[in-house]
């Protein structure tokens, strides 16, 4: 009996001590995971870790733990598995525009309209639109790239050429380059997606209102504006202003561009990192300009590629992620992030003095001359339409005589997917 009592007392003491110790220990708060696929030359992981450190130092909040995936395919598979699980990753990168639709329709992403409203005066309405589905906003900005014409400054100087302000001047630049044995512009079918560049750039410079209607299924791929765009594109091809389409955007163009064999490349400003890796230097070897409109009535237009970060609706850490999002959208945080990734801060009130001169000139021109900003084709329309369209754009580059069949197929696909989307 005495022995039993001793055992009971000792056990009760141990249990009580454990409870007290457990309660006294500060709860371990795991950092918020942020899934992404921006590895390699882009290298977001170490940069996100720096941002996390700043966030924790400034606010005492829960930091972030970036989880990098080696390829986009692996990232997309892992993300879908995570979002379908009971406790998904609280934060993840994705694509803007219609690429948000399926996550929003399944209730998988948090509505961040309130966070945006708090920072309303700091962001352009055009940029916010890229992250909206219907009337609500579902993502915070993680990067913004503009689509520009990269040009080799030494080649231009050698032939007394200046960045053109009108389409006629642009054609004269191309003609001069061709006459002197330099390929004026890069064009490629390698990798599948590059022909999308010419399609969207020429269409927004023919009729940007039509482009936006087409992206929303309110216009047709068989309409005269699309035919006119293909005609302009064909004229440039027939004049020999494009490189051979077998040339690769990443493996071949940087070296050819750096060597002055190709004078211009139409690409997003993120392409500076690809050129830099090939030893071609911004400011020294190349600069960029905004392509003038083909139709003067189109006005000043620039294509925007907005990269978002999304918050999982079902994550147990959703509130902590929203708190992080509020800090992330501030001018200081956006300036630091822009500096770390070498791109424009999305917040218009962020300090941009760290940007290299060509970037500063570009953003001053876009903001100062009030360029209309339109979403990149990949995000602006339904994902299925965009994916199937790439093969058609490639078909046009390889067989421009098939333009009628290309337009017909583009329209048939668009009708099929818009009908499904409206069900």
């Amino acid at each position, binding site marked *: 009996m005495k022995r039993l009592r001793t055992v009971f007392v000792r056990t009760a003491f141990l249990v009580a001590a454990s409870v007290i110790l457990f309660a006294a220990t500060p709860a371990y708060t795991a950092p918020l995971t942020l899934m992404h696929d921006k590895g390699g030359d882009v290298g977001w992981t170490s940069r996100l870790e720096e941002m996390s450190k700043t966030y924790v130092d400034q606010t005492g909040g829960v930091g972030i733990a970036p989880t990098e995936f080696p390829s986009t395919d692996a990232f997309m598979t892992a993300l879908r598995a995570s979002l379908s699980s009971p406790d998904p990753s609280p934060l993840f990168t994705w694509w803007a525009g219609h690429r948000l639709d399926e996550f929003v329709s399944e209730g998988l992403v948090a509505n961040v309209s309130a966070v945006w409203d708090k920072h309303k005066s700091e962001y352009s309405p055009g940029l916010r639109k890229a992250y909206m589905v219907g009337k609500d906003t579902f993502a915070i900005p993680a990067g913004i790239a503009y689509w520009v014409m990269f040009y080799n400054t030494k080649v231009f100087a050698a032939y007394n050429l200046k960045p053109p302000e009108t389409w006629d001047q642009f054609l004269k630049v191309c003609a001069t380059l061709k006459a002197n044995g330099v390929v004026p512009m890069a064009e490629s079918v390698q990798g*599948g997606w590059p022909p999308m560049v010419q399609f969207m750039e020429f269409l927004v410079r023919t009729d940007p209102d039509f482009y936006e209607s087409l992206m929303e299924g309110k216009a047709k791929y068989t309409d005269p504006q699309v035919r006119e765009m293909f005609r302009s594109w064909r004229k440039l091809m027939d004049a020999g202003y494009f490189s051979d389409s077998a040339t*690769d955007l990443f493996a071949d163009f940087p070296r050819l561009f750096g060597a002055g064999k190709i004078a211009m490349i139409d690409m997003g400003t993120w392409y500076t990192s690809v050129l830099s890796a090939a030893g071609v230097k911004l400011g020294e070897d190349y600069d960029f300009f905004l392509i003038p409109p083909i139709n003067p009535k189109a006005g000043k237009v620039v294509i925007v590629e907005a990269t978002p970060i999304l918050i999982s609706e079902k994550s147990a850490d959703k509130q902590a992620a929203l708190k992080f999002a509020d800090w992330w959208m501030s001018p200081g945080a956006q300036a630091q992030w822009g500096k770390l990734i070498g791109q424009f801060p999305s917040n218009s009130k962020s300090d941009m003095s760290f940007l290299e001169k060509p970037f500063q000139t570009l953003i001053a021109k876009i903001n100062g001359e009030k360029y209309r900003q339109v979403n990149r084709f990949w995000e602006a329309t339904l994902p299925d339409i965009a994916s199937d369209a790439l093969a058609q754009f490639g078909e046009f*580059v390889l067989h421009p005589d098939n333009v009628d069949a290309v337009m017909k197929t583009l329209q048939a696909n668009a009708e099929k997917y818009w009908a499904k989307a409206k069900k």
Partner: protein
Amino acid sequence: MWRKVTPYLYLVPALAFVGFFLLAPMVRTLLYSFTDYRGLVSMNIVWLENYVAFFNDPVFLRSFLNTLVWVAATLAFPVLGGLLLALLVRGIRLEELYKFVIFLPLTISFVTTGIIWGWMFSFQLGVINRLLEAVGLASFRQPWLAQYPLNNFSMILAWTWQSTGLNMVLFLMGLTTMPNEPLEAAMIDGASRATLFRRIVLPMLRPITTVVVGIALINSFKVFDLIYVMTNGGPARKSEVLAITMFRESFTEYRMGYGAAIAIILAILILAVSTIYVRQMALKEER
């Protein structure tokens, strides 16, 4: 009773492994093929819509045609090439060195092969076009990987370079284990080399040929990594084969129901062709 049950208990771990990692995913894929599943939460039954779409879409019909081209080319080049090389190198001086050199490509991965040949075939900077320029044949430069159907044959060349070695080794095994007496008897009777090969060597190689052709058939139907690395099925999806189309629909476009339907069609195709082939060979053996 225990004595009767015990042998089956030993099978349970292996059966569980196969059931969990092979049979269950196969059944799940079949079920997905009747839905519009996109890898997220919702899933609606669409019955045979995915299968109907497959047979109506010209992109998928081209993918099927490309697959048949790969099958035919694999039989023509790596298999016949392997047999030819086995006949050529057997018994010659430095036979071991030739076998080593021809077999070596198989030791590297298909992805690495694809990258190497991709660089070689590069239009602007690849060694093949540079060589043609260097010997004054610049007009013969080609967009080896950017033009259909040329790109199919460029990739088949890379595939042949890598696969022929294994077939050569298998045929050499068959030739080495063949009894010499029938050959000697035929030679004494005055049979020519061609007759010897046609009437004696080939029939006696039938068992090994069944294995080589069977493996080649299955591998050619499911060729993926080489094409993915070299052209990713482009340009404009023209060089896609069924395995690439299945991957693209499932893991790039996330039309997983559709991708599952293509996977089922591909599996049925491979099963049907290999079953018919093996049966035919078995019947010939019996005769």
